[in-house]
């Protein structure tokens, strides 16, 4: 009984993790578009949005790649929480364009996946108007 309830959850977590990995760069860009942030603030914001990272530190290689690609830039500034200065990331013009493009792609993609995944009434037969017609088919139907 326990197995039956645990396995789908684990599989679900794994799928969520994989899906998040695919769009984590866009999530980070979107969070910086809101305001400049430092590393831990990304994790907090993702957590607050219900997106929990398996390994929090995985944002750093991603941020480094985005910085090298010129999508974000960094600067050091005192943290609002106090303590040592933090490395903040902010969006560049290129990052803003990438975010806009990524949002459009994500919107289209989720709509398409949603259409495919949404439960539909299955009759067992394809719709008549979508079904390819030919003489052979007609003959068989008779």
């Amino acid at each position, binding site marked *: 009984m326990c197995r039956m309830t645990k396995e789908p959850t684990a599989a679900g977590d794994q799928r969520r993790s994989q899906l998040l990995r695919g769009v984590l760069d866009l999530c980070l860009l979107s969070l910086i578009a809101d305001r400049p942030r430092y590393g831990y603030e990304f994790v907090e914001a993702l957590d607050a949005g219900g997106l929990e990272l398996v*390994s929090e530190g995985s944002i750093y290689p991603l941020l480094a790649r985005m910085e090298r690609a010129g999508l974000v830039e960094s600067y050091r500034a005192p943290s609002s929480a106090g303590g040592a200065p933090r490395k903040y990331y902010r969006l560049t013009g290129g990052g803003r364009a990438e975010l806009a493009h990524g949002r459009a792609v994500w919107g289209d993609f989720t709509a398409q996946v949603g259409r495919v995944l949404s439960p539909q009434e299955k009759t067992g037969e394809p719709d008549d108007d979508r079904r390819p017609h030919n003489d052979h088919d007609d003959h068989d139907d008779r």
Partner: protein
Amino acid sequence: MTDDRTTTTTTTTTDERVLAICRANWEYRGIDDATVREMLAELAAHLEDAGAAGRGPREVVGDDVKAFAASWARARQPLRRRAARLAALVPAMVGLLMLFSHLLWRTTALPVTAGRLALIAAIAAVTVTVELRSGRLGLRKNWLVGAVVGLPVALVADRLAGDGPLFALPLWVTLLLIAPGAACAVVDARTRRRAERGVTVR
């Protein structure tokens, strides 16, 4: 049971240990000094914040600290740049060891034996392997590695290949080996001073 295991791993992998392993991995992967310090500061701050929120280092870097460090290093600097730095630093380390031998034997033409080469190779291999797993050994442990691993290997190599010199290494070659690494060290020191004066290093 699972909780016990989690507690054990969390307590054995401290923030300091994670930082030490990352530092060693980044340095051995050819990341420059200023960038290593910047990455360490960023990671240290994150570990501290995560700790304050009740999350351990494993939740930050995952189960494999080395893989995490390697992934960040690859993302941070291109291989070409890291390889160029390593190409300067590795000969410099060999050169420094040779310079030490020049001074010890008070000669400008150091006889290089199979044992001497085996000594350097053995110490380097063990040191790098251990430091990549556990962080910096420190001077005392490095000497211990030299005595426990290097000397026996050198003796065996001398016994097998003979203790006759393979070639004589002139002092100028030794200095030439050190030069590129010394240039890197000077650049690192200048960058460090600039950073300490508050200039942002990117």
